[in-house]
Structures are given as structure tokens and as C-alpha cells.
């Protein structure tokens, strides 16, 4: 493999504590090495006056699988004016909020992202998710199977059977080639199968007679019993409703008293995702207001919790979630087309287009809340930037979100541009905030932080010798004052150079190589558990519509280049 040495750039690497010092980064055999370990043949990249960081990590996005594809199928309008033609070996690519798989890989790479997690994989559809991941070039990907409404999980946890829950989780991660334990509206989505919902952590789930709180606590315990690389990853109950911050606090409090047990350097036991959608005050859309402070006060003092933001980007987009009842609620609200899929024994999903208009007060308040969360975060290693792609906006808007976070001037301009800016200012904290996120903090929020939370800190998110050579050079000088905040957006939109596992995939903002992407999954070994195996067999015989032998994602077609993280929970 080619050797590279990236010379004289301003390096930002929280893993080694480097805060913009001039340094060289050397690449050999797909890994970062000490700069005296490359030969004289190493290709030199001049990064003088530029910013050098590790490849960024997406901790939560809906980029592959059945609901994403429903979005593509039922929104031909999303492709309008977006297509780029085929060029050499680079495939044609199109779509805005739900880009084609090729575009997904290319766009992430151009912004300097090298790893991404698909946030909700319905286990029965894991083969579909993996086919799309296979067709998404360059970036390493993992996928989180959903467990929060799974019949096995609810039946075991009703009797507080943690060991059985853990054995089942390990089996399902293996069968679906999944990465982590995801919960979406725990209990509420099962209730949705009867057209109902669970709006608090104490609402009982119909028939199963268990509460969301019991499901959440049980899955935290099962997760730590297994010692998985990531913690539980939760989309709590009551998403998107005015006043829902109390439900969010109730959910966060369930993590109290638990301590992370794993060998991957992860400290948290709960990751709360797209927190923006869960930080709402008020009783209705009229007196809707930000409760970011209440949420962040709790998060800041709770070291065993990480969050991501879910920033609204003020675009027309496509919402999609395993929170089936929420999407029905949303279609009743905006009267745009509604797709829904209930998945036997496991989950559901809904899809509805949405327009976050700067002229609508509620949308502008949502925009403010997302930014407030990041600006109030005391520990950038525990608060990550996402747009919950495509729910609050497409991931291609990260550079714009970064601009808003790094420049108070840019925020001020946007606040002024809102139609209802006075009302927005009154309902939020954003106007008085002058914090600007530094490049070092940005590297924490988009690289080292998510890597640590995912249990991948030994592999990516940093530039320490021995780590994967995922390296980005941005045409952005930390020395010069930023005259126009749009320069920030431009620089982070198109990286000057991107290396993925030591291969140069982007040069001057253009994709030059389809890379050698991997599918990351977690292989957790547990003690033999005949009861769980018998329960699985029984459910397939009686209630599933496919046979157990045809359930697993197996073989080259689905996971052509697997990277399995081994976990041993047999002791």
C-alpha cells in the first residue's frame, strides 16, 4: 500500500491532546505510524495552513434499509436537480434528503466522514440493510438492530430474566450482523400495532404488561452483562411533543446507579439520541419552548450518559423512524404522505416528508434547541453532532451546523432572518449565547467522542500511531480570523484530502477512489442457553412468517467485507 506523510498541518487530535500544533501525520499499510517509520518514497502532502483531523464518525443516521428505501421509492421529487453523472469508476448519484447509496458514501467521504452507524435496523430486514450497506462505498458502517419492542425482550424482562435477555441479544446481533442495542419508543411501537402508544416511561405496554422503564433498565443491565462496545442507544418515549422534556428526564434518570462494564474504554451506560426532539417545554404548539437547559443540566452532571444533538437544518426533508405512532401523529399534523410498516414480533416504522421552514415559529425554536444543547455541553466528549439524518435535516448539512456552532455571528444572522424572530428569542436561550465551539472541541464532538461512546476508540477517531489511517485535511487555517462564517461551511463541505484506511479517497473535494469499505458488527459469545434457543425455535415455528433457517444475514452477498468485534461474555 502507498505511504503518505501529511506535512506541517495544524493537527487537532483529542486522543493525543494535540490542539492545533504543527505536526506531521504518517500513513503506512492502512495505519497511522510515527513519522520516522515511513520510507523516503512516502508521498508528501503539503498541509501548511490547513487543519488536520481524524476521519469523522457518524453515530446516528438513517442511511440504509427498508424505511430509507421507502423514502426513496415514494419521493421521486427528492431527486430533482440533484443528480451527478457517472465519471470513470465513480457511479452516478442523486437524491437530497434520501440520497442513493452511492451518493451517501460519496457525500460522507467528501466532508471527511469515514465511519457511520445506521441507527435502526429492523431485525427481520437485516439482509436489506446489509445489501444497501454493501452498495454504500468508502465508509465503514455498522447497524443497530432495534430491541425496545421485541417480544422476546419484553417477555424475558417481564420476569426480570437478564441473562436470557442478554443471550437473546447476543443471538440477534449475530443473526443480523448488528452492532449495538437500539431502543425506539420502547413499548410504544408494540402498542402501535393496535393503534396505541406509550407516552411516558410508566405507560404499560398492551398485553405484555411491562413498562418502558422496565424495558430500558433491563436492556441496560443486559448490555453491561454482555460488555458490548456501545451502550444502549435510546430514542425515548414521547418524541416531538410539547412538554416532553419531563419524559426525557425520567428516561435519563433510569441510567442512575449503573456503571459501564466493558473492555473498550466506554464510560456511559446510555446514549440518548437526537436529544433536540426530546427537549421541549410548553403544553401546545402555541407556548412551545426550549427546555435545553433542564436537559443539559442533567446530562452535564451525569458522567454515565452521552447524547447526540439532532440539529434542525431548516430544509425540506423526509422523516423516518421506528416510532410508528409518532409518524402517524405527524401525518395528521402536516397532512403529507404517510408510509408505515409494522414488523412482526419486532418493531414498526413510519415515513413522512417534513418542511422545516424558517418562517414557522416551532421550526425555528427546534433549530435553536439543537444548537443550545451543543453550546451548553460542558464535556464535548459526551455530546455529539448529528442531524438524525434525514429527520432533522440531511447529513450533508453538517458543515452548516458546524458554522452555526463555531460562529455566534452566523447564528445571529439566522435568528434575524426568522420571520418570528422575537417569539423565537423569547422561547429559547440561543440569543444570549456567545460560546463558539473550537476546532479542538469539534474534533471531540465528531471524532474522539463518538469513537469512545461506540467503543471504537482504539481503532478510529484519533491520529495516534497504530490507529486506522482515517485522516482528513481541511482547507481551513486556524491562524487566520474568519472574515465570513460561510468560509467555515465551505471548508468542511469539501475536504482537501481524505484517507480511509490509508487509501486516498477524496482529493480537492472530489471522490477519486471507491475505497474498501467494511461492515462492522459485534460477535458476542455467551454461555450456552438452551432455554433461549428453544424459545427462538418456538417463536419461528408459530409466529414468524419466515423460517429460522432463512433469518440470518449470512455470506458474501450481504457482508462482503466484515469486521467483527469479539466480545466474550461466557465468564
Amino acid at each position, binding site marked *: 500500500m502507498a505511504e503518505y506523510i501529511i506535512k506541517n498541518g495544524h493537527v487537532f487530535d483529542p486522543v493525543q491532546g494535540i490542539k492545533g500544533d504543527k505536526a506531521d501525520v504518517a500513513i503506512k499499510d492502512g495505519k497511522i505510524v510515527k513519522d520516522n517509520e515511513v520510507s523516503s518514497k512516502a508521498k508528501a502532502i503539503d498541509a501548511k495552513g490547513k487543519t488536520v483531523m481524524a476521519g469523522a464518525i457518524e453515530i446516528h443516521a438513517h442511511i440504509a434499509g*427498508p424505511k*430509507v*428505501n421507502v423514502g*426513496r*421509492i*415514494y*419521493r*421521486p421529487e*427528492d*431527486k430533482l436537480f440533484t*443528480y*451527478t*453523472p*457517472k465519471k*470513470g*469508476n465513480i*457511479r*452516478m448519484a*442523486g*437524491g437530497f434528503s*434520501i*440520497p*442513493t*447509496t*452511492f451518493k451517501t458514501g460519496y457525500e460522507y467521504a467528501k466532508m471527511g466522514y469515514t465511519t457511520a452507524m445506521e441507527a435502526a435496523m429492523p431485525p*427481520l*430486514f437485516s*439482509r*436489506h440493510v446489509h*445489501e*444497501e450497506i454493501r*452498495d454504500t462505498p468508502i465508509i465503514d458502517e455498522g447497524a443497530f438492530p432495534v430491541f425496545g419492542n421485541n417480544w422476546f425482550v419484553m417477555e424475558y424482562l417481564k420476569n426480570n430474566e437478564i441473562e436470557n435477555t442478554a443471550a437473546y441479544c447476543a443471538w440477534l446481533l449475530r443473526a443480523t450482523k448488528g452492532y449495538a442495542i437500539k431502543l425506539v419508543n420502547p413499548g410504544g411501537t408494540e402498542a402501535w*400495532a*393496535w*393503534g396505541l402508544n406509550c407516552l411516558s416511561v410508566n405507560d404499560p405496554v398492551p398485553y405484555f404488561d411491562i413498562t418502558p422503564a422496565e424495558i430500558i433498565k433491563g436492556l441496560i443491565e443486559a448490555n453491561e452483562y454482555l460488555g458490548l462496545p456501545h451502550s444502549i442507544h435510546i430514542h425515548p418515549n414521547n418524541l416531538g411533543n410539547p412538554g416532553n422534556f419531563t419524559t426525557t428526564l425520567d428516561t435519563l434518570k433510569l441510567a442512575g446507579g449503573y456503571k459501564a462494564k466493558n473492555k473498550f474504554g466506554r464510560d456511559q451506560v446510555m446514549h440518548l439520541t437526537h436529544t433536540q426532539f426530546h427537549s421541549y417545554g410548553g403544553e401546545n404548539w402555541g407556548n412551545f419552548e426550549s427546555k435545553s437547559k433542564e436537559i443539559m443540566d442533567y446530562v452535564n452532571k451525569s458522567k454515565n450518559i452521552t447524547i447526540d444533538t439532532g440539529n434542525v437544518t431548516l430544509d425540506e426533508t423526509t422523516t423516518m423512524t421506528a416510532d410508528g405512532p409518532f409518524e*402517524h401523529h405527524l*401525518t395528521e399534523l402536516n397532512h403529507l*404522505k*404517510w*408510509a*408505515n*410498516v*409494522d*414488523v*412482526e*414480533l419486532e418493531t414498526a416504522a413510519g*415515513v*413522512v416528508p417534513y418542511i422545516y421552514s424558517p418562517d414557522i415559529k416551532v421550526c425555528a425554536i427546534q433549530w435553536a434547541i439543537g444548537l443550545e444543547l451543543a453550546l451548553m455541553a460542558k464535556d464535548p466528549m459526551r455530546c455529539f453532532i448529528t442531524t438524525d439524518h434525514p429527520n432533522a435535516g440531511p447529513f450533508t448539512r453538517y458543515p452548516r451546523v458546524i458554522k452555526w456552532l463555531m460562529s455566534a455571528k452566523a447564528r445571529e444572522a439566522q435568528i434575524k432572518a426568522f420571520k418570528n424572530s422575537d417569539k423565537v428569542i423569547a422561547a429559547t436561550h440561543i440569543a444570549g449565547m456567545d460560546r463558539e465551539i473550537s476546532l479542538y472541541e469539534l474534533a471531540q464532538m465528531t471524532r474522539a467522542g463518538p469513537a469512545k461512546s461506540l467503543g471504537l476508540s482504539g481503532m478510529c477517531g484519533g491520529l495516534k500511531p497504530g490507529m486506522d489511517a482515517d485522516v482528513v485535511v481541511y482547507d481551513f487555517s486556524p491562524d487566520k480570523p474568519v472574515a465570513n462564517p460561510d468560509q467555515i461551511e465551505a471548508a468542511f463541505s469539501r475536504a482537501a484530502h481524505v484517507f480511509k484506511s490509508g487509501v486516498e479517497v477524496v482529493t480537492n473535494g472530489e471522490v477519486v477512489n471507491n475505497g474498501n469499505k467494511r461492515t462492522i458488527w459485534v460477535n458476542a459469545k455467551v454461555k450456552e442457553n438452551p432455554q433461549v434457543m428453544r424459545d427462538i425455535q418456538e417463536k419461528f415455528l*408459530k*409466529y*414468524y*412468517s*419466515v*423460517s429460522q*433457517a*432463512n433469518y440470518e444475514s*449470512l*455470506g458474501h*452477498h*450481504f457482508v462482503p467485507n466484515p469486521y467483527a468485534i469479539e466480545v466474550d461474555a461466557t465468564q
Partner: protein
Amino acid sequence: MTKTVTDVVCPFCGTLCDDLEVVVSDDGKQLTEVYNACVIGTEKFLHSQAKDRVTRPRLRQEDGSWKEISYDEAAEYTAQMLAKAKKPLMYGWSSTNCEAQSMGHEIAEMVGACVDNTAAVCHGTTLIAVQDIGIPSCTLGEIKNRADRILFWGCNPAHAHPRHMSRYSIYPRGFFTGKGQKSRKMIVVDPRVTDTAKLADVHLQVEQGRDYELLNAFRVALNNEWLPDVVAGIPAEKIREAADLCKSGRFGIIFFGMGVTQTLSKNHNIDEAIALTKHLNEFTKFSIMPMRGHYNVTGSGEVLAWQFGFPYSVDLTRGFARYNPGDTSTIDLLARGEADAMFTLGSDPGAHFPISCVKQIAQLPSVCIDPHQTPTSGVSKLHVPVAFCGVEVGGNAYRMDNVPIDMRKVVDPPAGMLTDEEFLTKVRDRVKQLKGLA
């Protein structure tokens, strides 16, 4: 001695049954018996054993006779035809696996082809309706475990999807439907007294082509508003009773077929059917699902969508993907004489298209890739027989509810035969050379 392969997936209809058992000879070369499949599925497996099967590509000669050629020569002919054409049409894709579809799309992208699947003459109208209004749906296991109201609208599963009712919709005893058929009410809407209609609790014998009116009347009845005495040939009282029956269920589903998608009003029928489903969700839980025909037509739509953003009738001739059914759809391209080469795989347009379109195929440079001899192979210049997907080669396929199931190989194909994917790979590599991309 023989051996039995279990959990075999049936490559016939969109029901994609995956509980078949197939008996094969010890050397894995002969298939002797098929268990659990319906009569059509059984035939599909047994047909692979036909003694008169064509096992090598054949090129049509001047005098109308066939000449056997090698797969390499066939790949050369196909690659040349596609590379030279200005607007080649690559049609079919519904009876093959997703791997072959992916490979075909790569070729289509290089040569600038129109790619279309059988939805164009089947559930394409459904897709247009879904693009208008969305679709609340579910997996077939949900029907089995929960559904107590089943509507079959313009479809006849007793004949077209023979195991649908026993595996998923009417007879099975699921988790919340322990009494099986007794826990369900079945409504059939069909102008004909079909074998499905004979099983129904309620048969609404709609006047032919009046489905839109009846669907609309259902919605009026849900709101308890005024109805004329008779709508679409059905007395108002009967419509109200049927609407109340739907409302009173815990979990309902509308299955619909070509009787509504390809009759008068087409996509507007489906618009209204989906609006009715959405409306019913104000009272109880309701879903709707198209009864997809070919076993992997759903998969073709899925793969096209994640690779190009559209589920069928995708035009790549301009170097980027366009979608405009009526303009970029197969029948229209053939009828207008726009396509200048015809490539067919995994479908039989010769048997199903209007005769003017079939005549058009006969006049064009054309390749038909199909394990069987079909009316399409009969009018094509080149016939490339391949291994039977789902019998002689595995691969992924999508059931009518979009659930992906990996098919199994149960026997070897006749010696020297290629699979769809293998043949297309040869074509792809040759096209790359011709286009200077290798």
C-alpha cells in the same frame, strides 16, 4: 440414496414461501420430489429437470433456424448490441435474484439504457399512487398474528398466490388469532365469483371498472354520510355493513391485485384504496398491501431505488437517472419505436405485451435471457438459457411485503450452464472494454 433439502424458498410468486422440502439425488444433480409447495411452485422446480431443456445459447440465423453458440460468443453479441445502441431497453428483472439485478444495473449505467421491471404492466400504478399518498402497511407475519379483518380487492389468491391464505392471511393461528379462520372476517371485492370469493364472509360483486366509486362509498359510509341507493352495483346497505365490519375489527388489511391496478382509473383506484386505509386508522388499525406477482419484482424495485432513486421505468440514457412513467416505461418506449435494442431477463413480455410491442421486439436487435423457451425467446435474435434462480442458484429475493429472503440452491444446473449473474458479469466486463473503462 436421496437427500432432503429443507427450508427451501419457492421462486414463483410474491408469496415467497420458504418452508419447502425438496428431495434430490445423492450427487446433487437430480431433483426428484417437492413437498409443501403449491402446484405451480412444484411445477417450477420439476420443470428444471425437463429433458428437452435448452442448455446453450442460440443465435437466430437468416433462414429462421437456431445456431448453438458459446456463452462467450453470446456475451460478445449482447455487449456489442448494448454498447452500440442509442437507447437500449433492459426489461424484466422480476424472476431473478438481486445480485443479477445489481450487475445488470452496472451495465445499464455504462451503456445508458432504460431499465424497467414488470411493475410497468402490473403494480406500477400502485407505485405511482404510493408516490401520491404514501402507504400504511405491515409484514405478513403481522397479518398472521393480529389481523381479524381481511379484504381481497381485485385479486384471486386461491389461484394466483395459492398458499397466501393458508400461510399468512386466512387460516393460520397466530399469537392474537388463536382460532385461525374463525377469528377472521373475510371480505372479497370482485366482479367475478372467483374461488376466493366463494370462501368469503362477504362478497361485494362490484360492477366492472367501478372500484373507485365503491372505495369512495366506503369512506362515505365510515363517516355515516348520505349514499345513493346503489353504488357500483352494490346496495348502500351492504356497503355500510361492510364498512362497519372493517371498523369493528382490531387489525385489518386490504390486499389488492391487478383487478384494481390495471382496470379503469388505474393509479387513482389505489390512491383511493390507500386513502380508505388511512381513514380506517382513525377508527382502528388498518394496513394495505399489493399482491405482487413475480417472486422478486419487489426486489427489483428495491435495488433500483437504492441505486438510482426510483422503483421502475428508470431512464439512464442521459447519464443520470430520470423517471417518468408513460415516457420512460417499456410499453411506451416500444410502442413509440424509441428503443433500438431489446434486452429481456427474468420476464416474458412476448406473452403479455400488446402485439404491436411484441412485433417491435421482433424487429430489433434483441437478447432474451431465460431458462425457459418462451414467446419472448421465440421473437428474440439471441436466446441465452441460464440456471434456474432459486433452484440451481441461490440469491436474495424480496417478498410482497418487502421482507428479503435468501433463496437456496438445491441442485446443480446442467453441466456448463451459467447463472444470470455469471453471464451478466461476462457482459459487464466486455462492455467495460468497449466503453474504454476497463
